[in-house]
């Protein structure tokens, strides 16, 4: 079930829109596009998420928001999450490799431990 990824993508697509407040958002086509993308994302993960409470909450929430913001059901969707391309971007999920290629040196590590009686 990939509902957390859908949630993250929706948050990422709308985080820069939230400064305008709820009233401004209702007429914002970008917000409606993000909601439609969110809805598509939930549909793609519907089968593995069928017993997942977070999934059903998201589906219900999207429906409410589409109505609340008077978003057309059909229309453009938000730009998809940028996928890594090429060697350097492909290392985005490998912290050390990506840090070295960006900064030209290894990251500075710190250590913490908790132990004992």
């Amino acid at each position, binding site marked *: 079930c990939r509902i957390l990824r859908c949630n993250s993508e929706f948050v990422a697509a709308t985080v820069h829109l939230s400064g305008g407040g709820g009233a401004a958002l209702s007429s914002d086509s970008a917000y409606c596009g993000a909601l439609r993308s969110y809805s598509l994302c939930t549909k793609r993960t519907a089968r593995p998420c069928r017993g997942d409470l977070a999934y059903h909450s998201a589906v219900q929430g999207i429906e409410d928001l589409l109505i609340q913001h008077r978003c057309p059901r059909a229309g453009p969707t938000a730009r998809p999450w940028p996928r890594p391309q090429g060697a350097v971007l492909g290392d985005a999920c490998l912290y050390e490799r990506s840090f070295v290629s960006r900064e030209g040196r290894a990251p500075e*590590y710190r*250590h913490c431990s908790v132990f004992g009686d």
Partner: protein
Amino acid sequence: PHIRTFGDDFHTCAVQGAWPLIDNDYLYVQVTGAPASQGTHHTVVTKITIIFKSWRQCTDQQLYQAELDDVPAAFADGSQWSGERRGRRVLTVRTDSPGRHAEIRAAYIGTLLVVRQSGRSLGLSVRSPRGVLEAFHPDHDLQLCVWGCPASYRVDALRPPPLPHAAGAAEAHCAALLPTRDVYYHACVFDLTASGDLNSSGAAVGALQDARSMTGSGQGVHLLPAAAAGPAG
């Protein structure tokens, strides 16, 4: 428990209940402390909870939980890894000693966590890049690994509690296990004196092993308390 912070401070901390060790944009780590035995205020870690927060295209949120006598080599959902990029798994769990040890590698944040059970307590060691550790909101001001133990909960580890175990025997036992009269040695003596359980010395030995492998060099491994330094024994 004893805490070595990211800033290389060392505290012995009598905290009960759930306390956050790390709370940043990527990671939430919490330990739960309970009294070591009835009638004492010394506490041991009995539960460790780690939440790896969902991060872009790398991994979905994952939960790891360990309890006394149950240190699983798997996340709470039963999986042993999450996220795969270019043939590498970005979040994995493995073990060297099933039920008592787990090593979690989070490659997408360059972080290594080791959970151990020694005697009747759990321990945790973490190695993480500074950039990851500093990614938190100022509101998240209670992180034992960052700020150390709150002053009112600190215990003086250089003055071990009297009884039930003779201090001389505890010192000899710990000196045989630990090469330097550093904070690990003093923690060992403290634990042995407080608990009377020879197995409790394993916690300091395991923590020193982790410090050696995580700090990568001889220098900086042995933190020396202000009042005592030099070879043990």
